[in-house]
């Protein structure tokens, strides 16, 4: 009865909201979650192949997309929170929209992207078959307080899961997985020689100490062995498999290793060769490098930056190439009120270069940060849309690195007024 009511109620709230402008994704979920806290769990626990949660500081959205893609390519019906609303109520909302009035969900498996704090709450309602833990590093500490706190949330999620897939090169996660029985834990990772591309939280901020290069004590099921341009090579069971990915960025190649390691467990009958081939077709997620053509013939790419690790990764991917950079930093709650983290970003790849524009509510703070690394800024324009219009008539390739809410505004504008080329 409760399930039935939850489903009907969620659908009704959604129908009511349809009259209003905007997406209204979270509200039906909020109503359902408040009234029937057990609804979400009861519905998800009925799925024949259970629930998979994907969590960590960076790479959740893309990795979830990869796993869902691999499952669908192999005939699975997958429930996922693809609206980008990665909170429990976002999930409750998805469920109530899809559930049949009979209370059945027409899916085999749920693959959910969950932020760390929500993961801890969700596992009180659902026992996941799998938790995939990607990485932990300093992120939005004005919300979470400490990195240790974030790690403890992920630990709670891992303990509540039947099995886990863990980044073997992340010391915080390895520590969190320590108490788990060996047979419950699978690993993904990267080869020794790629260490410098994927600094962990300690390495991000460490100074001249003997490098505590996290050498994976555990041997990973899937290892990112090498990459070059868009081609990634994975080592699986002693054999190497390569593919040209649609996604760019070194961090996405590692996300690919995570997705493959999980998919190997979820799809035991599919060969590694097929999985790697299918991985190549995964399209970009929101704010992960979509490209638009501008009026003046130039192009602009949007890249989300949200913490020192993702910003450092973005600069490693784009900073040394010959593109014109704009950086847009907001300090709304979704971006993080505290902009101290900009000082933990490694701007080395921009040495002796210039940033065309800084923008966002913290445009001046960004320019100040760059000044202390001797990186010049062409112009400070706090309004992201006005800043974007400065690029309109310029040729060449532009890349905008933006925090979440700045990205939303730029995305809305570009998707209305510019032609999408990727």
């Amino acid at each position, binding site marked *: 009865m409760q399930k039935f009511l939850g489903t009907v109620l969620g659908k009704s709230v959604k129908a009511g909201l349809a009259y209003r402008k905007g997406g209204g994704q979270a509200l039906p979920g909020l109503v359902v979650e408040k009234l029937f806290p057990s609804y979400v769990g009861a519905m998800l626990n009925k799925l024949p192949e259970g629930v998979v949660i994907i969590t960590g500081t960076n790479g959740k959205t893309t990795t979830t997309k990869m796993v869902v893609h691999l499952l669908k390519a192999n005939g699975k019906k997958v429930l996922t929170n693809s609206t980008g609303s990665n909170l429990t109520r976002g999930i409750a909302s998805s469920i109530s929209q899809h559930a049949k009035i009979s209370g059945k969900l027409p899916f085999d498996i749920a693959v959910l992207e969950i932020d760390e704090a929500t993961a801890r709450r969700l596992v009180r309602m659902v026992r996941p078959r799998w938790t995939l833990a990607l990485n932990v590093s*300093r992120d939005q*500490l*004005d919300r979470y*307080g*400490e*990195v*240790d706190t974030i790690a403890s949330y992920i630990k709670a999620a891992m303990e509540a899961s039947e099995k886990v897939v863990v980044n073997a090169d992340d010391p915080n996660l390895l520590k969190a997985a320590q108490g788990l029985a060996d047979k419950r834990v699978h690993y993904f990772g990267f080869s020794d020689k790629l260490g410098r591309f994927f600094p962990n939280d*300690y390495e991000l*901020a*460490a*100074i*001249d*100490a003997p490098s505590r290069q996290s050498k994976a004590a555990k041997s990973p099921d899937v290892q990112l062995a090498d990459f070059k341009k868009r081609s990634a090579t994975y080592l699986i069971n002693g054999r190497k498999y390569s593919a040209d990915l649609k996604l760019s960025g070194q961090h996405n190649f590692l996300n690919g290793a995570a997705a493959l390691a999980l998919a190997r467990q979820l799809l035991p009958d599919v060969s590694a060769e097929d999985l790697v081939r299918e991985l190549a077709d995964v399209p970009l997620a929101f704010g992960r490098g979509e490209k638009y053509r501008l009026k003046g013939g130039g192009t602009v790419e949007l890249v989300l930056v949200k913490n020192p690790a993702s910003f450092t990764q973005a600069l490693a991917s784009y900073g040394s190439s010959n593109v014109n950079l704009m950086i847009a930093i907001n300090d709304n709650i979704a971006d993080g*009120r*505290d*902009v*101290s*983290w*900009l*000082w*933990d970003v490694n701007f080395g790849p921009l040495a002796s270069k210039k940033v065309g524009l800084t923008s966002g509510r913290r445009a*001046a*703070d960004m*320019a*100040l*940060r760059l*000044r*202390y*690394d001797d990186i010049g800024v062409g112009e*400070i324009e706090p309004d992201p849309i006005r800043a974007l219009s400065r690029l309109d008539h310029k040729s060449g390739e532009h890349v905008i690195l933006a925090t979440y809410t700045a990205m939303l505004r730029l995305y809305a504008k570009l998707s209305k007024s510019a032609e999408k080329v990727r």
Partner: protein
Amino acid sequence: MNRLDILHLFPNELNTYGDHGNALTLKRRISWHGLEPVFHHHHPGGKLPPRVDIVIGGGGQDSAQADVQNDILRIGGQIHELAGAGVPMVLICGTYQLFGRRFVTSTGQEVKGIGVFDLETIGGPKRMIGNVKVKSDFGMLFGFENHSGQTFLAENQAPLGIVKRGNGNNGKDKTEGARTNNAFGTYMHGPFLPNNPQFCDEIIRLAAVNRYGGFTPREIDDSLSVLTRSAARRRHY
């Protein structure tokens, strides 16, 4: 070129919330003023350099503070000597707490500090997080606080300043930070020094006067800090 020797305490353990920005800012501004910055990174077990003109230390997680506690007690005597000699020090958050008399965690555990400041810190139930504005002898100071420890100054311990917005030491008595001689402790991240360049220059001046008997500042283009500071002054969240 005249050099200044900077002792950076526990840079690998105590460095949250962008506190490395303080080291970078000191490094640049010392150079811009025509002096040569020389950094000495102190790791647990290490030896202090023979000459120290400035001491800095950042914030850390509670677990990291426990990691460095024994070592700071080991070098505490030398730090006291430096503080007594008027060496300027900028100690943020976790390091600030370790420079007090003691820290009592929320689980009742007592962590001893080196007592450069006459204060104690009690682990509180809720974190104090947000932008802060502090009135001080060095003009208005801006930063971002993020701590659960509540710090209480002894009666004769001078604060760094008075809170105009935010919580400061404990959210109750309007004090923020502490000052003893030329040692300054504060909860302000942001980071602190690039957001308060006039304070940074005062630290450099004190160090240069101690070592060389004088300091001639050079003109530095601080137009960007003027922008960020005027925005910080108006910020209402």
